[in-house]
């Protein structure tokens, strides 16, 4: 018996092992080179066939628990939540009335200025799968993929502000990279004075850095940063973060930092924004698309 294991182990220690090693190493490095250029994304599909059932299975107990806790909520809780939601809906409808009037006015004024105006994003509701990916990398896996028309690079927002953008898509799920990921940068502008800059992720879910602002820039704590629309990934005007820290008087004393307004660590529903790239006509026609339109399948 001992001799048998010996021969077996001699066999795996043979030269075929080295050939396999070199082949596998070469293939891995080749994949890495291709991935770094972002050229191919389809090669993930066969592996995601293995991974998807596991992701769904891991996410299932948490979803069951949520469903259970929602369906066993007391009558009183449901009534009070209903009341709250009704009030919120009324409030939002009131704002919407003003918004539509302002939108028409904006289009008219831009028509006078002879510029085109882009508005009318469509959104798709997705839910994050409750799985952990990697601790120091800020990714969320969501439950809809290319079957629902999600594409790479689309912006993802929640009820409060920008969450991130779609990094990778498979047929049944998508990886969303958050704005706080260290490799992510988002073009923003200060809502108060229109000052444009770039907000970089830090790896902590409550902090963004603004390294390209000089310390004398007119930015105060509490200022809202909104997407500037430059770069073409994020549509303009979505809130991103609020300034928390400004460097004290002396130059080089520190950097501006901001905390994201989106609830990055506890969202249940996210919206994937389908940015409409065709400019609207300056004279609004009658069947003007309402904003925002929730569609079940925005395959465009």
């Amino acid at each position: 018996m001992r001799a048998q294991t010996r021969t077996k182990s001699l066999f795996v220690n043979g030269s075929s092992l080295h050939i396999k090693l070199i082949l596998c190493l070469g293939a891995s490095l080749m994949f890495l080179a291709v991935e770094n250029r972002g050229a191919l994304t389809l090669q993930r599909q066969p592996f995601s066939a293995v991974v998807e059932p596991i992701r769904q299975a891991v996410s299932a107990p948490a979803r069951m628990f949520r469903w259970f806790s929602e369906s066993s909520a007391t009558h009183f809780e449901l009534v009070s939540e209903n009341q709250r939601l009704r009030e919120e809906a009324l409030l939002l409808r009131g704002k919407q009335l003003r918004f539509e009037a302002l939108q028409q006015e904006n289009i008219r004024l831009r028509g006078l200025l002879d510029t085109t105006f882009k508005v009318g994003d469509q959104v798709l509701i997705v839910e994050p799968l409750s799985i952990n990916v990697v601790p120091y990398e800020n990714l969320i896996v969501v439950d809809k993929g290319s079957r629902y028309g999600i594409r790479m690079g689309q912006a993802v927002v929640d009820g409060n502000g920008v969450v991130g953008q779609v990094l990778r898509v498979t047929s049944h799920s998508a990886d969303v990279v958050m704005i706080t990921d260290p490799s992510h940068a988002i073009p923003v502008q200060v809502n108060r004075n229109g000052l444009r800059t770039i907000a970089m992720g830090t790896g902590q879910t409550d902090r963004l850095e603004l390294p390209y602002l000089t310390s004398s820039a007119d930015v105060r704590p509490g200022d809202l940063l909104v997407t500037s629309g430059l770069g073409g990934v994020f549509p303009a005007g979505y809130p991103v973060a609020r300034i928390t820290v400004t460097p004290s008087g002396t130059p080089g004393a520190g950097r501006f930092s901001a905390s994201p307004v989106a609830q990055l660590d506890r969202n249940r529903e996210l919206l994937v924004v389908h940015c409409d790239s065709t400019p609207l006509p300056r004279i609004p026609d009658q069947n003007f698309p309402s904003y925002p339109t929730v569609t079940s399948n925005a395959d465009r």
Partner: protein
Amino acid sequence: MPTDKAGGGPSLVCVLLSFVLGMVLRIIPIPAAWFPANPDWLALLLVYWTLNAPERVGVVTAWLLGLIADVLTGRLLGQYALAYTVIAYLNLRVRLSLQSLPMPAQSLWVLVLLLLGEGLVLWTQRIELAESVRLIYWLPTLTGALAWPLVVLAMRGGDRATRRS
């Protein structure tokens, strides 16, 4: 060693099931405070199977497993594939001397392998990410080495159970 008893090696079902379980444990939702300590169960299982069933799990299996791990954890395709290939190769080279070592020494070797693997993943990472990595990045290798005796015990038990049926 289980391989010595039956000669035929562990059943394929047992190996596959353990890998599926490893993938589940890799992404299981545990509290955020605990999550950074979650060890790389797939790498531990890979070390176990290359040690005890080299005729079933070799370098190519390790590479395929690594590609699946890349997709599972949202990495660039090839990062874990590279790390797992190197881990499997090194482990296959020393497996005969490793089998006679006591458990603490084996754990130490596992720690070395895991550190090497994580180091390779970090090396192939995008530069911005590599810069933001703190000391906590290496915690899973430590917990992995501590969890090694557990993996060995569980896998031996599972191996026996699947053989009997």
